[in-house]
């Protein structure tokens, strides 16, 4: 279909439109430039009649700065001002695979693993560089010049020989696109010539945000839409027995009351969608008020005998007596421990954390006989489309999904439940519906960060070097990763073992999954071992990371780590924080370094005690090693964010369960950090090791912050925090 004729037709059309587009191609090469090719396929990049760019960003922005970073890539390669790049969120441009599932095509369309920038780094620059090459070709024809003499700057093509210039605006309808551009041959701007990438750029969405524009999923309405409030079963793995919903029928504004089945029905399975009662009304408030007044009998029998004390009991018992699965065994752990000049044993534990996404979940769905449309904020476009397809039995190829800015995700906006409820109800009612979650349900029906219990035994040889480490972990989710984390690989004698705790909880991904807590346990125990060895922790850590040149990560993404980068990060934060300077009484410093996914971060945290039971964070000094830094201002924002999130979770994060019901279900009972407790000073240093690609930043700073904090609290107060949350251990 992409014939020469159709291309010419397109160009004629585009001349009157005064714009040209680069779209995702269905053919094997990455991108093409003919809008007729894709039919309804959206452009990746459009250059409009003013010579300005409209960029469709393939990955949702949930606060990680995706739109800004993506705009920078395009402004750089196209040689136009960042202000002249308008950004929109692209719709799904992947494909449907043989199993009928939506899958990513040539563009990655999800945000997770801190990978969004790394995923778009090459394709977006190639797209913009290709658009630039088309403009140069057009200018060469117009100017009758040799392409080699042409360069671009400020949305103009400039003839270096003659000094004549022509604006992009005058070229857009002169562009002639190749049918199948070979993007490998399109020259990308050399690093030394970059003017936008690597410079501080403010959030491009800020003007919409500060003026209250309806840019989030929860802000979307469609004509004829009904509103839904659902009362969801608060009992872990619980079900619906009965309710008095009949009494609502015929009341003003009430449309229907519908039973929501638990998915899957078997309570032994992890929850996908909660059991509940949906009240459908002509406004959200009418639905909410009526739902709140419903009398509902739930079946809470499955987990009636479980509560937080029960979880603590089975977790601690497992550490001492359970037979566990061995994950790593190096050397001779028992022999080494018996030969050690000093041994140390400690037990650590932490409860579940809720995500508390600032924007409560919502979804609008309009399900027809053989097609469906959804409007939602979701981290992964393929997952969202498949969720709608699975809920309705409508083929994924017939699902149209509209995506929006996300009011934080943290992994929770990866799940399917809030989409499937809306689809189920719209299909049942034959009308578009909007389901809006309450904050209480957002916490009660969360897929929590896992709880876990750890027993560590460490051995030091006569020189004070760690020669043995044994870690046993009992966790309520499939998080065995703590058993194979550094110092695993750096200790000759090592044993890791883990057990899945039988609880009724549903766990999921929470910012820095696994890393967020295993960093704390391992880096705190290293601090304990350093003290036992009579060494400063920095010296002990430096010796550990200098003991080998590299180590294989046994956890995802299974990289070979160059440990000189750990050393560099530690040295940087030590130097910048004045680590070895004496502190006033009641103050303490802690240090930690941790690789999360593809990036690395070290912190020195200084705290001051406020009496015996509280503390304030005086200063945080951070070094982040995240590869090529696209937007240093945005990277610092992500580091600050991880610090605050880590402080908040470690200090207060604690989902409490009684009789199988979560009882911490809003901000009055599940405490979050406010401005008064934010660190007084944060100094962030972005390390430059000359990398040519970004490695990700969204999750990197959180995991090492928690051990640096608790190590600091130990220095300041003499209290070793081995059980989170900190407020309950001080």
């Amino acid at each position, binding site marked *: 279909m992409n014939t020469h004729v159709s291309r010419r037709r397109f160009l004629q059309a585009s001349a009157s439109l005064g714009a040209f587009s680069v779209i995702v191609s269905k053919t094997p090469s990455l991108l093409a430039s003919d809008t007729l090719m894709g039919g309804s396929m959206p452009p990746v990049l459009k250059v409009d009649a003013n010579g300005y760019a409209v960029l469709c960003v393939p990955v949702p922005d949930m606060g990680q700065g995706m739109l800004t970073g993506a705009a920078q890539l395009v402004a750089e390669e196209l040689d136009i001002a960042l202000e002249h790049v308008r950004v929109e969120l692209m719709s799904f441009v992947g494909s449907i695979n043989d199993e009928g599932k939506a899958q990513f095509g040539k563009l990655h369309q999800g945000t997770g693993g801190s990978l969004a920038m790394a995923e778009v780094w090459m394709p977006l620059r190639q797209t913009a560089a290709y658009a630039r090459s088309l403009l140069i070709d057009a200018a060469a024809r117009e100017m009758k010049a040799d392409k080699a003499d042409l360069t671009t700057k400020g949305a103009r093509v400039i003839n270096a020989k003659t000094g004549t210039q022509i604006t992009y605006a005058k070229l857009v309808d002169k562009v002639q696109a190749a049918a199948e551009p070979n993007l490998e041959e399109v020259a990308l701007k050399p690093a030394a010539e970059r003017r936008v990438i690597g410079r501080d750029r403010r959030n491009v969405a800020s003007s919409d945000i500060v003026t209250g524009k309806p840019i989030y999923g929860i802000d979307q309405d469609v004509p004829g839409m009904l509103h839904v409030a659902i009362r969801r079963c608060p009992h872990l793995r619980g079900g619906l027995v009965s309710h008095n919903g009949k009494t609502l029928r015929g009341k003003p504004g009430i449309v229907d009351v519908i039973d929501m089945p638990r998915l899957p029905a078997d309570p032994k399975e992890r929850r996908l969608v909660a059991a509940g009662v949906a009240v459908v009304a002509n406004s959200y408030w009418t639905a909410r008020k009526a739902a709140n007044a419903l009398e509902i009998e739930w079946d809470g029998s499955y987990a009636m005998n479980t509560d937080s004390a029960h979880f603590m009991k089975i977790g601690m018992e497992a550490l001492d007596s359970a037979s566990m699965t061995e994950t790593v065994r190096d050397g001779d752990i028992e022999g080494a421990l018996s030969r050690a000049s000093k041994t140390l044993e400690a037990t650590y534990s932490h409860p579940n954390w809720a995500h508390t996404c*600032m924007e409560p979940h919502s979804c609008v769905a309009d399900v027809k006989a053989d097609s469906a449309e959804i409007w939602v904020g979701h981290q992964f476009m393929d997952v969202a489309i498949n969720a709608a397809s699975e809920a309705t039995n409508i083929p994924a190829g017939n699902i149209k999904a509209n995506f929006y800015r996300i009011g934080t995700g943290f992994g929770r906006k990866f799940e399917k439940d809030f989409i499937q409820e809306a689809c189920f109800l719209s299909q049942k009612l034959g009308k578009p519906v909007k389901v809006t979650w309450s904050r209480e349900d957002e916490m009660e029906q969360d897929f929590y960060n896992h709880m876990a219990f750890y027993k560590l035994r460490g051995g030091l040889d006569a020189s004070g070097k760690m020669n043995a480490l044994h870690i046993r972990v009992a966790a309520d989710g499939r998080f065995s990763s703590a058993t194979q984390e550094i110092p695993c690989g750096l200790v000759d004698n090592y044993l890791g073992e883990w057990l899945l705790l039988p609880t009724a909880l549903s766990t999921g991904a929470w910012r820095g999954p696994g890393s967020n807590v295993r960093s704390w346990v391992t880096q705190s125990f290293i601090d304990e071992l350093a003290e036992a060895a009579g060494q400063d922790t920095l010296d002990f850590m430096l010796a550990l990371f200098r003991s080998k040149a590299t180590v294989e990560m046994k956890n995802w993404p299974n990289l070979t780590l160059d440990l000189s980068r750990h050393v560099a990060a530690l040295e940087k934060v030590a130097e910048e924080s004045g680590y070895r300077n004496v502190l006033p009484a009641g103050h303490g410093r802690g240090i930690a370094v941790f690789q999360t996914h593809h990036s690395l971060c070290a912190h020195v945290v200084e705290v001051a005690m406020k009496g015996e039971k509280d503390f304030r964070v005086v200063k945080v000094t951070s070094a982040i090693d995240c590869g090529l830094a696209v937007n240093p201002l945005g990277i610092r924002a992500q580091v600050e964010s991880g610090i605050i999130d880590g402080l908040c979770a470690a200090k207060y994060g604690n989902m409490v369960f009684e009789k199988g019901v979560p009882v911490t279900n809003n901000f009055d009972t599940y405490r979050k950090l406010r401005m008064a407790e934010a660190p007084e000073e944060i100094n962030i240093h972005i390390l430059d090791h000359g990398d040519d690609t970004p490695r990700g930043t969204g999750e990197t700073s959180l995991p090492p912050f928690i051990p640096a904090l608790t190590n600091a609290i130990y220095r300041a107060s003499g209290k070793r925090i081995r059980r989170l949350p900190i407020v309950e251990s001080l």
Partner: protein
Amino acid sequence: MASITFSINGREQMFDGDEDMPLLWHLRDEAGLKGTKFGCGIGQCGACTVHVDGEAVRSCSLPMASLDGANVTTIEGLAQGDKLHPVQEAWIEEDVPQCGYCQAGQIMATAALLKSNPNPSDDDINEGVTNLCRCGTYHRIRKAIKLAASKMQQA
């Protein structure tokens, strides 16, 4: 039931619906003003902060019944036409927003604080702006509040 007469962003309104309805849901679902955000429903997080007669209030917990004769200002009504309020300008200049969901509420809380206290100390800020931010932008919010204060004093 008598109608409730009040104004939103300077425009007179009549309301004769459910008087228990919180102002938040009237704004979002009936007045079509989506800038005021739902966060918790219990007045804890402040995402729904608006001005009622110049005071910052949490609209999720304010029933329509209490609004007779009141003047409500939302984030959509804070700027003077195209001219942003100094607090909005400061938010952009300090690059405060990450996800941005809570920021309308933060801005409304700050604008009210600076009206009554043009030069707030750190403690005044801690007590005057207690809204939750899940991205942890507090560090930059504090800077932006101080920048906005200095902008307003120079103006």
